[in-house]
């Protein structure tokens, strides 16, 4: 039987590992260490004279440490997804969404890119788009990609993704397809209440996420220019696209700071401290881009006027730190650029006040003035 609404959240605050207790901090430390080794193994090698992840990966036939990472990612998502569904699986939305997440990740995030090279094919990630996968827009990368895939990724990033965001909100990507979001919603779910709801956190987010969006645009543009004129201007080339790490080029820095530190070390490593969507909320340029499109699109959260009892379940369990209650208790349907449409606010609302909706806007979205008066 399908029942709507939450169950299984009841112990949230009574489990210390979910509330920055010692176990939570240890999990975080472990994750951070893992990511540091993953990204900086070659530097580490100079000190400890071994490459722990690569050596392990090759010894089990995974060829390199990135495939090992991909496999671990799948395992965490499958386990986390099963636990998630044990808690929230009484909702169709959650069932379909998590099933899609796991399928996309296993097929396109791991199997396809792992298997294709075995048949001398290219290693392609079809579920990632620019500006999240920023290097797909670097001319050198595009040049090397098979033509069909280059066309797919350019059209996908510039047309498909925003058009879908217009009709369905950015959730189609952030909550159904993207691996970062999928990991946050499965493995990271136990910590979703930790995302800060403070006004300060909101202010930080608005600055940081558009800053990264600006940076990725700048980097993409300059790397593109470098492709055209870099050969004539060696200094420009070195500053923009220099490949050696001590060139400290823009391209290198963006990869280091955004691609490795913010997306990996901070974004996933700090799940148990800051909540699972740190990256998506504060830094992801794809989220920023699709969120802006979505602001003018159809997706919004409809509020059933008068019904909200201000309990705070929706705000507490919003992984993006949106104070959903503030809209609900003022009878206001809303679209927030940051909303990834995970559906949790509607799911946990004990009064059925909220509904995710793509339908064209109508009367129902109007803010209500007061009690509805019916003379019988």
């Amino acid at each position, binding site marked *: 039987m399908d029942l*709507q609404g939450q169950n299984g959240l009841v112990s949230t605050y009574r489990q210390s590992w979910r509330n920055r207790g010692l176990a939570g901090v240890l999990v975080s430390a472990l994750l951070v260490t893992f990511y540091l080794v993953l990204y900086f193994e070659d530097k580490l090698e100079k000190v400890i004279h071994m490459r722990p992840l690569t050596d392990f990966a090759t010894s089990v036939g995974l060829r390199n440490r990135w495939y090992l990472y991909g496999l671990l990612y799948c395992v965490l998502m499958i386990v986390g997804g099963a636990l998630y569904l044990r808690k929230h699986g009484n909702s169709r939305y959650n069932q379909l969404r998590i099933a899609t997440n796991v399928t996309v990740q296993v097929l396109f995030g791991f199997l396809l890119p792992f298997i294709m090279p075995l048949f001398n094919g290219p290693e392609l990630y079809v579920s990632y788009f620019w500006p999240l996968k920023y290097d797909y827009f670097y001319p050198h990368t595009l040049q090397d990609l098979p033509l069909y895939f280059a066309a797919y990724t350019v059209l996908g990033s510039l047309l498909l993704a925003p058009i879908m965001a217009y009709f369905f909100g950015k959730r189609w990507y952030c909550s159904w397809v993207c691996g970062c979001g999928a990991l946050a919603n499965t493995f990271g779910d136990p910590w979703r209440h930790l995302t800060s709801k403070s006004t300060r956190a909101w202010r930080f987010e608005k600055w940081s996420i558009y800053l990264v969006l600006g940076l990725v645009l700048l980097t993409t543009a300059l790397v593109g220019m470098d492709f055209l004129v870099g050969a004539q201007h060696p200094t420009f080339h070195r500053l923009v696209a220099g490949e050696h790490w001590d060139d400290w080029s823009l391209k290198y820095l963006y990869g280091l700071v955004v691609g490795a530190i913010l997306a990996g070390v901070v974004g996933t490593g700090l799940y148990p401290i800051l909540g699972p969507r740190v990256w998506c909320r504060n830094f992801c340029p794809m989220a920023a881009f699709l969120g802006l499109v979505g602001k003018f699109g159809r997706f919004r959260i409809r509020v059933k006027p008068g019904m909200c009892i201000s309990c705070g379940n929706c705000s507490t369990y919003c992984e993006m730190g949106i104070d959903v209650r503030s809209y609900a208790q003022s009878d206001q349907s809303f679209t927030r650029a940051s909303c990834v449409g995970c559906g949790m606010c509607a799911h946990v609302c004990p009064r059925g006040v909220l509904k995710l909706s793509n339908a064209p806007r109508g009367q129902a979205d109007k803010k209500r003035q007061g009690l*509805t008066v019916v003379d*019988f």
Partner: protein
Amino acid sequence: MQIVIVGNGVAGMEAALVVRARMPEAEITIVSEESEHFFSRTALMWVVCGQLDYPDIEPLERDVYARQRFRRVRARAVGLDAEARTLKLVGDLPDLPFDSLLIACGSRPRPGPWPGSTLGGVGHFVTMQDLEWLEAELHGGPAKAGPPNSGGHLAHTTEDSPYLPRTVSAVARGASSRRPCVVGGGLIGIEAVEVMHAAGLRPRFFIREEWFWPIAMDSKESTWIAERMREHGVDVQLEEGLECFEADDAGNVVAVKSDRGERYEVDLAVIAIGVVPNTDWLKGSAVKLDAGGGIVVDEGLESSVPGVFAAGDCASVRWFEGSRRPEQLWYTGREQGRIAGKRLMGDAALYARGAWYNSAKLFDIEYTTVGLVNMNLEGEQNFYFEERGSVRSTNRVVVADGRVVGFNFLGRRWDHEVLLRFIAERRSLEYTLEHLHEAAFDTEFVPALSIPPEARRAPLSGPAPSGVREPITPPTSAASRVASQGAR
């Protein structure tokens, strides 16, 4: 201008915000005994469960007093001098002079009539202090930090205050509760049961009536809820009331005796037999109270003392059928607070009693009710359809005078605004069933309700027995309309 508000619940706080929005200079003093911050009383249960933390149930950020320049007095109000226009505070705290006063002091639990109702381990589930008590009984204390400055009022209160901390029997026993029970089959009762179930226990639920919540449910609907409770491991004792509580030497409850002569061992009991207006402190003042203790107010929420208003659970308002009693609901409290706020500033405003609607969650079953349900209307008929597919639901439409007047739904989510429109437009049952999908508010991908044609033509049944109401004539005002308060 000096404005004093008793109570920082939804009614009091809403009024204060309305005043501040228009009167930046007004002196606004909020007297609140129970808690430092405005919190959502409706959300108490999730705090006990560990699903929400104390700050989570506060609808406004904690700095609201500072930002809005509300003066907070954490003390008990004990009376009112209508002549001198002052509010009296407990002990030797100075009186508070006011130009206008709002009393929004809410409800207190109805005390148990049975011997032993005040024993250790016996309590209620209404106040912040009840919450702390229940957390201590079930879990040994709060999950994280408890409420800020929880005892801030203890130096400024009276013996008969409903906001005094209760003794925790678990402390004397040295162990959390193992065998809890709840007395009284209403909404607060079922929430208390859920809280115990969430603590991994098997509560016993004493319901005096033939089925759970007859004032709102008919027997078929209620049977499903009882079934669901039993599936969750609740011992639902229907048609079984209490005789008395028994205590051990330390004065803590150890058993209840039922009116069927049974004796059950229990170590914790929550009495949830309703709430009464929290107005004892106004007895003997110039403010007129009704028989139940509610503050009698006119359509502008003004009490018998000019310039003194009441809103929320403590205000006795006139209902559509002419009777007078408080509306103990969150949204009506909020709305009354908004109107009262205008009145405090001297504006004219009327509280237009809205159509009845509400939603709730009974364990994991969604519940929506709209319009006149279980009202025992003359000539009332009920359409009932039970769905048992991938979704289970019950769907009841109340018909009187050849048009729909009410809806009672379990298992699905509904948009009450659309349902109210059907009522206001005086739609027939046929039309309503045809258009029911317009009111669906289920989460995405939930298969839509479909009522097969033969079920639509099934014979209707008579009035749903509410067991508590005298028959009333259906209101027949010719002009039906939907209007909003703001437009008036």
